[in-house]
């Protein structure tokens, strides 16, 4: 398609659609984008022909925005195709960036997932033993559905990625900033995280911070939360200190601790381990038994610390057999 306009494709892998909604949330701006660019593919809102993409020259697209994680061969295939056809590939949102919440599946196994969904649940047809099969014979032909991977991968596990836009979903004002940067060709070094700050959430969080000494950890429902004081200082586990700011600190300002969707800061290789190091260091005790009691207040720490980043953590998944 001969056009001097910017050639853009938006695609979702293993996604919930929230990232696309974040793009829609740029409201009128989406019209400016449409004016400045040809949207060649956007399954949620535009009828694009997959054949068109395949038919493209390598690098014919200026920008491909991929949201969602990589869970099955289809996701990987499209990721590789877009990589080949596009000058820039952007990992958009927590799932593409870090693995996201679906990445928590890496704490369990494929078999457990299947048996929970199809063999053991209270509303299942009595005595049902059927499992979906990658191939099943119907009418003398075979119906196929993709078999999904043993675990969840983030986008740059399968293709090189030029930029990362963090967030679950990315804050719409950040999305706009990023799109503007692309349109204006005003981009930082390849590999950078864009649409976010280089400082932790605490930098933006309006809550008052002081020295930290924690004697007690509480779960959010256990106490009335002071609207002005640092959540961590109240004993509410908060991932703000290990999380890139850029979301506008929406969760803490609504009384809900940060769970880390914007991912770790540059130089931090494992968001969960860093959170662990930081919060335990300020436990106010030198007595092993008391320390044990205090950390009893932090159940399922792995599930919290790697809420959005399990597939991008050092261990990537539970290695339990």
């Amino acid at each position, binding site marked *: 398609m001969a056009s001097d306009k910017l050639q853009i494709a938006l695609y979702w892998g293993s996604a919930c659609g929230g990232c696309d909604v974040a793009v829609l949330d740029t409201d009128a701006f989406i019209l400016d984008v449409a004016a400045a660019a040809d949207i060649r593919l956007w399954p949620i809102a535009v009828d694009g022909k997959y054949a068109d993409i395949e038919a493209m020259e390598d690098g014919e697209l200026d920008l491909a925005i991929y949201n969602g994680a990589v869970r099955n061969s289809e996701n990987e295939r499209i990721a590789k195709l877009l990589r080949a056809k596009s000058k820039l590939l952007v990992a958009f949102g927590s799932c593409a960036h870090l693995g996201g919440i679906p990445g928590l599946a890496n*704490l369990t196994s494929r078999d457990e997932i299947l048996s929970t969904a199809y063999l053991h649940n209270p509303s299942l047809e009595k005595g049902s033993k059927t499992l979906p099969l990658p191939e099943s014979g119907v009418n003398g032909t075979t119906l196929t559905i993709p078999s999904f991977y043993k675990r969840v991968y983030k986008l740059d596990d399968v293709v090189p990625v030029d930029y990362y836009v963090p967030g679950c979903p990315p804050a719409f004002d950040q999305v706009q900033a990023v799109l503007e940067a692309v349109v204006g060709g005003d981009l930082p070094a390849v590999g950078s995280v864009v649409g976010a700050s280089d400082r932790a959430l605490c930098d933006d969080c309006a809550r008052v911070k002081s020295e930290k000494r924690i004697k007690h950890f509480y779960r959010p429902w256990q106490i009335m939360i002071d609207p002005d004081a640092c959540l961590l200082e109240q004993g509410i586990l908060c991932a703000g200190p290990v999380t890139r700011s850029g979301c506008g600190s929406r969760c803490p300002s609504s009384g809900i601790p940060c769970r880390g969707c914007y991912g770790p800061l540059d130089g931090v290789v494992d968001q969960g381990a860093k959170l662990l190091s930081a919060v335990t260091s300020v436990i106010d005790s*030198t007595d092993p038994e008391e320390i044990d009691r205090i950390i009893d207040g932090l159940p399922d720490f792995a599930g919290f610390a790697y809420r959005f980043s399990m597939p991008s953590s050092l261990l*990537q998944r539970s290695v339990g057999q």
Partner: protein
Amino acid sequence: MSFEPKIVGFLCNWCSYTGADLAGTSRIHYAPNVRVIRVMCSARIDPTFVIKALADGADGVLVCGCHPGDCHYSEGNYKTMRRMPLLKRMLADLGIEDERVRLEWVSASEGKRFADIVDDMTERLRELGPSPVKMVLAGDAGER
């Protein structure tokens, strides 16, 4: 040939590393399975180091610091005392067996103790077998 575990040991400079040196000057022999990494204080040991060692293929990780109250930096080992229990709980949730990560206090005069700890840990890991990390990640790479 039986399985020989590789243990990464993080030792504080003032007590544990000196203790390990003392084992040497006293010619106290112990299993050659440990690889020591020196830090100034056990408080420098970011749990990330422990996980990195496991991810890079260590079968076990030994963390040693001064005895509580004896820290060269007066309070450093208390940070370690606080970090390790939660780290072990988290690693358990990630499928890492308890014996693979161990925290011990070793003073500058406890060369023998250091040797005994290394021998004991090596023996336990021999029984436990290789770390699942390498195998599982390799398996994933083989077939996604």
